[in-house]
């Protein structure tokens, strides 16, 4: 198809200190296409578009946008010129209303004599939300009362205007609810099919890419490995072909656990006894040593809150969380008794972005590292380097700041904290969110290894395939209640589970 090229990058090169993110990459984006960018963590797929959207400059190379040389000064500048990017992590302004978030930086349009006409702003916000098909949120709602998923939607509405020529969606769908995804899909199809604009879809969810995109570019280690057209994407062996391109080697058959019998030791590692808080009433769960309990459901079904409660982060109205017979009332007690927690809200809760990798990994282990009153830097480095090696975190050294890492590598850091600490019970909320196949495979192997060592794992996830693939027991929730408890079995299918969720 002879589409008009709207954006082009030539010889784009980007280095973060010693790490090369992009090697001399050439790419063209045409009007009317939904271009998928797929690759493993750190392959450079987000980096290309973050440079195009003005988030960071390239080390060298040139860009052409609408036939002109393109040098965005900032993301603000780029958004004014028509390249908008929705980021992976939460990016809303807290403590204000939805409308104030939507119109941040445009307050002049609503002001008269120095005063902002808030009711006008709320009205405009409501109209805008309606235009995007969002009916459950209103302009005057405080943003803090929205769920993580709904806040992501607000970001999308903020990013996309009539002037948007290229919309970059960076791993956003993993942070969206089911309805949110539908809204986003509708939006990008409208933009490309009716308005002849371009969408770049950065993801490593293969199913999603194959379903939504018209063209696909595969990256690996900062290089473009190949392009696929829609016809090639429809070929029966497309998935294997893309995987091979992404990973560069056959990743083998083994992905999830290969045994299909539920197993665990007798000893109870963690017990939730009739806990009630907020909308959750009378929830009980026994987690035994060497057991992986999976929890699934739509986001907003209460499973994330259960995870927090198991870690002592929720104030219980009734019931208790027991570990070795002792009640857990705060996360400090939880950690002391050997529980680890990987938050879903990675950048805000699980890791310190503005700190080196090593600082993050050793943080929960500082007490253990203290010998004779002080902490030897050598011991810290040893502990952290062992984890960096085990997880193959892509970095120059442990001194590199976490905010320079790609999403999946950040996730590895938040995982590594607890393996370094040697926690016996690990509560993981969406442990593989934003992580690609190669790393997922390694993480699943690691989770299985933990199980064999007798660790108890509570895996909360929105991905049914990994829940089925890894759990000994599966708990499905809907509207804050348990709708099904399923044992591990070869015959368990996603379709059997979905009916309990919706």
């Amino acid at each position, binding site marked *: 198809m002879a589409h008009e090229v709207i954006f082009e990058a030539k010889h784009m090169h980007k*280095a*973060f*200190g*010693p*790490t*090369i993110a992009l090697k001399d990459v050439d790419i063209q984006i045409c009007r009317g296409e939904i271009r998928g960018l797929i690759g493993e963590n750190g392959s450079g797929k987000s980096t290309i578009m973050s440079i195009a959207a003005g988030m960071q400059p390239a080390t060298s190379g040139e860009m052409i946008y609408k036939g002109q040389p393109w040098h965005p000064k*900032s*993301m*603000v500048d780029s*958004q*004014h010129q028509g390249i908008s990017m929705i980021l992976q992590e939460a*990016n809303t*302004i807290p403590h204000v209303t939805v409308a104030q978030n*939507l*119109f*941040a*930086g*445009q307050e002049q349009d609503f002001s008269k004599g120095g005063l902002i006409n808030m009711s006008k702003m709320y009205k405009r916000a409501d109209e805008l939300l309606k235009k995007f098909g969002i009916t459950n949120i209103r302009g005057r709602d405080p943003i803090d009362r929205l769920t993580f998923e709904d806040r992501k939607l607000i970001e999308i*509405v*903020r*990013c996309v*205007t009539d002037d948007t020529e290229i919309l970059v969606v960076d791993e956003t769908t993993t942070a969206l609810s089911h309805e949110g995804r539908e809204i986003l899909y509708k939006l990008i199809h409208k933009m490309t099919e009716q308005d002849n604009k371009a969408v770049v879809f950065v993801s490593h969810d293969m199913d999603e890419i194959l379903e939504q995109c018209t063209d696909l570019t595969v990256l690996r*280690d900062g290089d473009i490995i190949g392009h696929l057209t829609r016809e090639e994407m429809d070929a029966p062996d497309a998935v294997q072909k893309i995987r091979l391109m992404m990973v560069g080697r056959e990743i083998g058959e083994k992905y999830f656990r290969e045994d299909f019998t539920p197993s665990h030791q007798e000893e109870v590692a963690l017990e939730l006894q009739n806990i009630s808080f907020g909308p959750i009433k009378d929830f009980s769960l026994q987690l035994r040593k060497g057991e992986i309990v999976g929890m699934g459901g739509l986001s907003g079904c209460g499973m994330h809150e259960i995870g927090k409660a198991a*870690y002592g*982060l929720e104030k219980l109205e009734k019931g208790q969380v027991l570990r070795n017979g002792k009640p857990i009332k705060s*996360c*400090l007690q939880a*950690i*002391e008794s050997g529980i680890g*927690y990987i*938050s879903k809200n990675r950048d*805000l*809760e*699980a*890791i*310190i*972005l*503005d*700190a*080196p990798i090593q*600082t993050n990994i050793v*943080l*929960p282990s*500082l*007490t253990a590292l*203290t010998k004779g*009153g*002080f*902490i*030897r*830097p050598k011991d810290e480095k040893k502990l952290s380097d062992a984890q960096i090696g085990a997880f193959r975190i*892509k970095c*120059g050294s442990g001194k590199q*700041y976490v905010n320079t890492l790609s999403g999946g590598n950040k996730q590895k850091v938040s995982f590594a*904290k607890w393996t370094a600490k040697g926690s016996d019970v690990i509560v993981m909320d969406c442990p593989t969110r934003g992580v690609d196949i190669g790393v997922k495979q390694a993480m699943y192997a690691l989770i299985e290894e933990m199980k064999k060592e007798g660790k108890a794992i509570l895996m909360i996830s929105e991905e049914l395939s990994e829940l089925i693939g890894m759990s000994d027991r599966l708990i499905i929730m809907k509207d804050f209640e348990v709708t099904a408890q399923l044992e591990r079995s070869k015959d368990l299918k996603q379709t059997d589970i979905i009916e309990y969720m919706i």
Partner: protein
Amino acid sequence: MENTAAVKVFSKDWFRTHGAALAGYGGVLFCIVFFSITTPLFGESIWSASKLSTLISDVIVLAILSVGAVFVYSLGSMDISIGKQVGLYATIIVAVTNSTGSLILGILICLVIAVFIGIVNGATGELLHIHSVVSSLVFMMVLGGISTLIYNNMGSRNVALKSFDHHIFKNVWLMVIVLVVEVLIVTFLFNYTKFGKNARAIGANPVAAEQSGINLVKYKVIAYVIMGVFVVVAAIFQMGYTGSASDSTGTGFEMNVMVALILGGMPLSGGMKSRVSCAVLGSFTFSLLNVGLPMIGIPVNTVNLIKAIIFIIVVLITCRKSRGVLPR
């Protein structure tokens, strides 16, 4: 995967990570070089024995306070009661020494008060969910009020030591030794123990710090208590220099500490880039300006103005955020 050369010196990335340190070291180096060249032209060199001892006595109180405050500032907090604390402690030490003859007793009383204030300042912020500046503001007013009452009752605006010989506190070598020992202790606690590591983690991301098992209340209290102890040490030297205290002793010290830390490259938001060296460098820059500027013929009453200009420049270099708010 292959690696290229390390980050280029003076490149943009380099500035992002080392900009604040550059400002801290650059400021003090610039002052040293500038005054070394200019002061001899106006007569006396800044490195003459008498000027050097003036410099040390000028820097000592500020440096002790700033180094002690590193913990609190690394939390991203600040304490604006330390000026009034210095004033009250100096008064108490003089008064107790005069009435009982024991300097030690006065110091102990001050330590007890300092630890109490530290605990309250550190804990209220976290337990009552208010910014810790607010509770230190309360202390600033309360302590100021107590000082006023004391001096009103005495019917005089200052008190002096009667029998105790305070000349030991004017010994420059003692000042240097105390400062060096303090820097060593604080550096050790800050870089090689949980206290410092946890304080920086709290400053960088309190939610992640708590979820990693850091007791926010405990480590904030520890940070404030460490500072309180050094405020007492500073008060001893402040009192010892003249052998007296007055109702204006310590006025404005809390702001001088803040200025010194910023001049030294300390981020006001705290976090991982907080360093003990910021406090030392900043205090010396501050005092070099204090002592040096009048020596090159700048009238004393314009020195503050020049310090303000330098302060603005440093703030522009170190505290600026390049990212704006994304519009719709």
